[in-house]
């Protein structure tokens, strides 16, 4: 069980997020910034950094809060409930990869920059849609024959959320003899981004590396350590995305319940009709099951043993997708035609849920991974 001090800490974080959302109206910003680049506000990002949120999981030695993924989840959940457009989770995933890398000057300066808000990182790792295996490396790094201090990167990485506006990328690469993680500044020649518009109006990018030269000193980790850092970052990212899904789903459920209480037809509130009451109850049950499953799965979030952590992440993500799926679809229906308009905020939640559900493995993929990782316990019957 979580101890009292930790619970207090999380309450403080949740309060500060709620306070921020009350005074900054992120929903309005999210609406205004749709289909723009970078799709968020760097000044808002700076403020979040000052509130400590870019460094929740960064060790105190680098100026961060030195807390766990469960604490970041509190921030992610609260910000997502208000549709904050800043790439909070995308940056956290890249940050998590850096935290897991070998100690060194580059790691220290990146983390300090991230905590300060000066560096906004993103993670480029995925070989192809539907891929969730961090060891399938799609970018190759070879020594630059012309410049012995450099490595040349060749290949591509898909679906990099938070790429637009990022100052640099943590890129997983295959070196001649080992996998590795490299830091690639966004302005590196030979690196090109082809932007893809996500359903929620935020950009993502496919990254293409064509003889992109990166100093050897930009290697953050190599060998097993690199794969380990990447695997942990992806698992923790799945937890963070699940937290976002549950946060937005809870807020949309509350909004929908309010609508049922106030919208009047046939001379009475539509929430008095049993058909809608029962369906609203089902959404409430999905939310409670989702929240409970998430909290239980979090216990294994910091397990040293990767299989346990990955299984827990898959369980959390699969369930959160399912919860958000139920709530977002029903929210449209229960709002009626207004729920299908662009003016209504329901659509923002629906689309954010679509993006989050697909990102880093959808529910079906995570069920498959869960089944592969967790052997059935033989039970008597």
């Amino acid at each position, binding site marked *: 069980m979580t101890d009292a001090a930790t619970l207090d800490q999380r309450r403080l974080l949740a309060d500060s997020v709620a306070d921020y959302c009350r005074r900054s109206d992120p929903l309005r910003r999210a609406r205004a910034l749709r289909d723009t680049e970078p799709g968020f506000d760097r000044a808002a990002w700076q403020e979040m950094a000052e509130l400590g949120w870019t460094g929740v999981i960064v060790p105190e030695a680098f100026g961060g809060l030195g807390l766990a993924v469960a604490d970041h989840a509190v921030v992610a959940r609260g910000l997502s409930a208000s549709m904050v457009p800043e790439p909070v989770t995308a940056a956290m995933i890249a940050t998590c990869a850096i935290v897991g890398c070998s100690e060194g000057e580059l790691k220290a300066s990146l983390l300090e920059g991230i905590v300060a808000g000066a560096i906004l990182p993103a993670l480029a790792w995925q070989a192809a849609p539907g891929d969730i295996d961090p060891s399938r490396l799609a970018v190759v790094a070879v020594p630059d024959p012309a410049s012995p201090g450099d490595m040349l990167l060749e290949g591509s990485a898909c679906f990099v959320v938070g790429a637009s506006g990022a100052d640099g990328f943590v890129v997983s690469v295959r070196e001649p003899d080992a996998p590795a993680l490299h830091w690639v500044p966004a302005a590196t020649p030979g690196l090109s981004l082809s932007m893809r518009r996500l359903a929620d109006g935020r950009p993502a990018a496919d990254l293409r590396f064509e003889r992109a030269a990166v100093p050897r000193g930009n290697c953050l980790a190599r060998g097993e350590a690199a794969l380990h850092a990447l695997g942990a970052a992806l698992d923790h990212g799945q937890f963070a995305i699940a937290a976002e899904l549950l946060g937005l789903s809870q807020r949309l459920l509350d909004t929908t319940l309010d609508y049922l209480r106030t919208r009047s037809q046939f001379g009475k509130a539509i929430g008095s009709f049993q058909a809608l009451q029962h369906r609203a109850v089902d959404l409430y049950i999905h939310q409670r099951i989702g929240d409970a*499953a998430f909290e239980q799965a979090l216990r294994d979030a910091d397990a040293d043993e990767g299989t346990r952590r990955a299984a827990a992440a898959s369980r959390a993500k699969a369930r959160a997708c399912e919860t958000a799926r139920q709530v977002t679809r029903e929210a449209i229906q229960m709002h009626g035609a207004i729920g299908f308009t662009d003016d209504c905020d329901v659509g923002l939640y629906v689309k954010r849920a679509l993006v989050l559900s697909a990102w880093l493995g959808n529910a079906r993929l995570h*069920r*498959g991974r869960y089944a592969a990782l967790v052997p059935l316990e033989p*039970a008597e019957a």
Partner: protein
Amino acid sequence: MTDPRAETEGHDDIDRDALADDAFRMQVREWLQVNCPAHVRFPAGRMHWHECRDWWDILYRKGWIAPAWPRELGGMGLSPIRQIVMVEELERHGCGRMPDQGITQVGPIIIRYGTPAQKAWYLPRTLSGEAIWCQGYSEPNAGSDLASLQTSAVEDGDDYVINGSKIWTTLAMDATHMYVLARTDRSVKKQEGISFLLLDMKAPGITVRPIRNIAGDDEFCQVFFDDVRTPKSNLVGALNQGWTIAKSLLGFERLGIGSPRRPQLAFARLEKLARARGLFSDPVFMDRFTALRLDIADLSAAYEVFVEQVRRGEPLGADVSLLKIWATETMQRSSELMLEAGDEYGALGGDSDVEGVRLNVLAPFYSSRPGTIYGGSNEIQRNILAKAVLRLPT
């Protein structure tokens, strides 16, 4: 009344309060492994009295028949959280449910509302198994709308005279006694004219007719009352207080109905079938199978949230109903996938040989039906949640 065996063999006198919860759990687990007879483990349906009275006697002699009752009345005096541990261990071991409504239902009601004479007479007999109870609540025209019940009890001298009929009375054919909700005042709001009475099943005028259920078993009955007399001393609590008394048991009971154990058992059968039929390599089956597996794992997580609430000594709110809904409907989905996975085997009644494994493919389909109906149907639970938790308008 005291059972002489209890004196010679001695009630369990270990100071269990001194044990940590986990140590208590292990003590129960080990004791069950040694003492629980095989024939009461994993029964196909509800056990009749003659099938389990030896197990009742073993628990009674150990002093473990009534975990929730106070010690001075012959119970274990367990805290709520240890009662949950006890139930979990019994379920884990596969101990079938006995005709235990005297222990879980009417006993606690008599303890709380009964007269000194009722306590002295009924409680020891209920513990020993001399008095086996059935519940007279539902009627042919009062199911989900229980408060509209019409069975009447009319004063006549020192007795009440009961007329009417009760239905879905589980194991009435085994019972020696019944606790009954009967209408004693027709002039007031329906909930306010109901009284809680005890009666002897041997009283003249009672007819018990077993009802064969869809699975072919006769677990429940219809009971007819034709001028049945029960002494006024069998009124529990005040006249017309019956509805309040009956409702006082809810809450904690719903936690029990929402335990993940029954869905887990149904899922274990599905797993056995899937293994026998080589379905683990079928990706379509596996996705649905894993979705169910997670539905049950995540039910356990929600169940644990409520158990923690009990552990902190907090009362359970109306939201606990969500467990019952999720548990019972998950079990039904599991039984549906089992039918599908069974192909033609899903059309066979009774046990069959499924590719070398002995299985009853239809058993979970039948046994998962009552859960969504009894104890307040799932529709009633949804009404409660909509009103009491979501505060939706009426």
